[in-house]
């Protein structure tokens, strides 16, 4: 071959690269060497700071390609991989790329052979570099340095330790993103400075050249801790994407051990607040009676009061549900014995419903009140409290299995439906319940007690009409 005239047989060439990431320099040298037909095992590539002494006796002058040398072939795929792979910190990368380029001359499609060890290796290098770049985009953390000088204004400085020679290659990303901001990225391999118009490079830096903190980091840490869902701890998934080596330069990472350690406790607390769902249902009325006396699931249970259990036949076709026991019910321990209960009895008798045949109970089992002197004033239970107590009314329904449930008042309706409804809109017609029974809603008798004159007469008439409808429906269902 003609090239041999220019290459001394057995010469060992040493190529010193001016920069570790200088692809264009490598390409130019590699092209000449291929054209001179220098095989891969006759070249040593030395990067700055590399072990060049080993090759002190090598030939440092480059061979001159013959005039009629064939052009060097490299496909686009190779060039794009090589551009990235050369940024890798593996000292063997230059030799690997040269070997690939060398082999490409005789088998131009070899880059497609993914099972070839050289192809696999260069793809691996490329992947590592792309990942490192991606992590740099993600994990660089700027800290604000406020200058006294008005002219200079805000300056954002970051300290980052990339694994490969990727700093220069990624300057463009940060420039495009923060083009109207003054920033610097300092790394052990060099630094970048952007003043809003031009990019400049600086020497390698050390950690203490960068600021040690930023007031905004407290907010960022707060965000990091709050957005984390302790119910789904997946530490492996986090470590895979955010390996520990990056942690030391990320302000939020200092929280991780604490968050992980606290997660179980936080989840337990979340579950405990909704803990009723996770218990077993009592299967007899006696068991419910016993359990409600011990119930402290909502604040009402902790007042000075007694739980009041429902009463009536265990196989009653009709279940009547009120809001909660009142002062007298609490003292006597039976539902609907106070003024509202007495009024209810009057109306039930009037339409011909036998209270003794019905199961009478309340949506909330304990009496909620505020103390005013010697008197305990009735307080409406909150939606949350009713929802909590639903557990018991559902348990009672599961045992008694009434065909028809009559809810008196909005609280009772919520206790059965789980949502607040307007009495005037839903009264007078059945609402199907999930277990196949039906719900009728009417006003609470204590509502009647609070009214006077024609308004009371009107409401009493409506109440009677509701009760009468229930009676008719019960006879149909029987």
């Amino acid at each position, binding site marked *: 071959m003609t090239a041999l005239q220019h290459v001394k047989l057995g010469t060992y060439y040493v190529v010193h690269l001016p920069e570790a990431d200088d692809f264009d320099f490598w390409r130019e040298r590699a092209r000449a060497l291929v054209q001179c037909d220098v095989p891969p095992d006759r070249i040593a590539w030395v990067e700055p700071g590399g072990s060049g002494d080993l090759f002190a006796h090598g030939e440092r002058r480059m061979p001159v390609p013959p005039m009629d040398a064939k052009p060097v072939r490299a496909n686009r795929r190779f060039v794009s991989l090589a551009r990235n792979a050369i940024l890798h910190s593996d000292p063997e990368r230059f030799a690997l790329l040269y070997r690939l380029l060398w082999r490409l001359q005789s088998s131009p*499609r070899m880059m*497609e*052979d*993914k*099972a070839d060890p050289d192809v*696999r290796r260069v793809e691996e290098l490329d992947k590592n570099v792309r990942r490192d770049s*991606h992590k740099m*985009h*993600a*994990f660089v953390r*700027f800290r*604000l340095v406020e200058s006294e000088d008005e002219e200079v204004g805000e300056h*954002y400085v*970051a300290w980052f330790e990339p694994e490969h020679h990727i700093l220069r290659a990624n300057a463009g*990303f940060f420039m*495009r*993103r*923060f*083009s*109207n901001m003054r920033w610097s990225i300092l790394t052990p391999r060099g630094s970048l400075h952007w003043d809003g118009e031009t990019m400049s490079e600086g020497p390698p830096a050390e950690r203490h050249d960068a600021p040690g903190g930023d007031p*905004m980091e407290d*907010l*960022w840490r*707060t*965000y*990091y801790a*709050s*957005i*984390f*869902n*302790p*119910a*789904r*701890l*997946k*530490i492996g*998934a*986090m470590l895979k*994407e*955010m390996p520990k080596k990056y942690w030391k330069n990320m302000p*939020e990472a200092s929280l*991780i051990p604490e*968050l992980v350690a606290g*997660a179980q406790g936080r*989840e337990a607390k*979340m*579950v405990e*607040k*909704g803990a*009723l*769902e*996770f218990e077993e249902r009592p299967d007899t009325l006696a068991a419910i009676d016993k359990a409600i006396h011990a119930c402290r699931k909502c604040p009402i249970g902790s007042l000075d009061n007694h739980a009041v259990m429902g009463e009536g036949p265990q196989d009653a076709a009709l279940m009547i549900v009120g809001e909660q026991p009142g002062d007298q019910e609490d003292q006597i321990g039976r539902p609907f014995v106070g003024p509202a209960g007495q009024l209810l009895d009057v109306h039930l008798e009037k339409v011909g419903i036998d209270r003794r045949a019905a199961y009478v109970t309340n949506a909330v089992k304990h009496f909620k009140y505020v103390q005013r002197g010697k008197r305990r004033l009735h307080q409406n239970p*909150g939606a*949350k409290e009713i*929802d*909590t107590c*639903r557990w018991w009314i559902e348990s009672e329904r599961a045992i008694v299995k009434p065909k028809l449930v009559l809810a008196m008042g909005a609280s009772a309706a919520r206790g059965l439906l*789980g*949502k*607040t409804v307007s009495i005037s809109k839903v009264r007078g017609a059945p609402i199907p319940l999930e277990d196949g029974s039906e719900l009728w809603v009417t006003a609470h008798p204590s509502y009647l007690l609070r009214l006077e004159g024609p308004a009371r007469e009107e409401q009493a008439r409506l109440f009677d009409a509701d009760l009468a409808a229930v009676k008719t429906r019960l006879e149909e269902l029987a």
Partner: protein
Amino acid sequence: MAAQTILQKLEILADAAKYDASCASSGTAKKNSLGGKGIGSTEGMGICHAYAPDGRCISLLKILLTNHCVFDCHYCVNRKSSNVARARFTPQEVVDLTLAFYRRNYIEGLFLSSGIVKNSNHTMEQIVEVARILREEHDFRGYIHLKTIPEADAEIVHQAGLYADRVSINVELPTDSGLTRLAPDKDARQIEGAMGKVKSDLVEAKDARKRFKHAPRFAPAGQSTQMIVGADAATDADIVGKASRLYDNFRLRRVYYSAFSPIPDASAVLPLKRPPLIREHRLYQSDWLMRFYGYKPSDVMQATEADGNLPLDIDPKLAWALKFREAFPVDVNRASKEQLLRVPGLGVKAVGKILASRRHRALRLDDVALLTQSITKVRPFICTVDWRPITLTDRADLRSLLAPKAEQLELFAA
């Protein structure tokens, strides 16, 4: 009560936003801040700026404008009847926070949602106002994802799409009956109507840009939605069916699944155990099968077990392969791309490498091993020049051979 600090508000409103699964910042139009007066860029690929110990990516500042809400959806921690701490940001506060975080490279942008205050229109206007200040006053060119409220006027929702990279409307639950029961204030038809409107806006804007260079962009990263898994009785087959209808009807970019997780102050209407997290994972796998592997929804449904749910111990692709053993083994040197994509253990990348490599050599088992993650998983389903799984595919215990080994659970595992 003393006025809340930004820090306290952030704590409450980030906490309230964490049940939204999406944090994606990918797939939008390329833009950067060169020549502008602000900051920000999006270059196609999303960036996860941090990962929380729950393994989820933190890409966006994901917060609620407020967690006050007039709705009473039982699965939601912010429902009216819940007694969580409440807070409210002003639009300007959200803007300042977003920019401060963005300048320090903590985030890719903002994902803003909100509880409903006053009424739907008022709330939606506030959300749009945040995006307007960011885009118009600060020339912010980062990523913005706005949650839109289906009950709000179409005109305001349209405005949101003009500022945002992505808009989303949550369908919340896979079945209409579930929605009626658990989200009494929401209406399935209204939600789908709003999604349909966004779709037509997307199509229209895309068409306009073909004809007029300066036609305004409308949500270049498209629309997405989220479904809660395990809060109602819907099976995986129902969910997959619903998701594929949504993909077809509304050209969604993504359907997110969020496993119902115990929320503080849960409503009593949810007499539920938390669904295993792995169920959510299996649904995402099936989503991938439909989006990248050419499976039809009916294929995924065939992989479900008798109860309509995907098996939890093995992935849906393996489940399908075990049910249709007659489709295997597949010859890696001859089979079509579609056939190779059905082989358990071969991903889209591995299939691409096999197709490229087999033009150069007849693949042996060792070659395939270099191209895949785990040859043991693939082996029973393929033939190579030197390998033929004679007995394996007929073995009744193949499933137990391939299923990942059961792990001893930690006593105090979370």
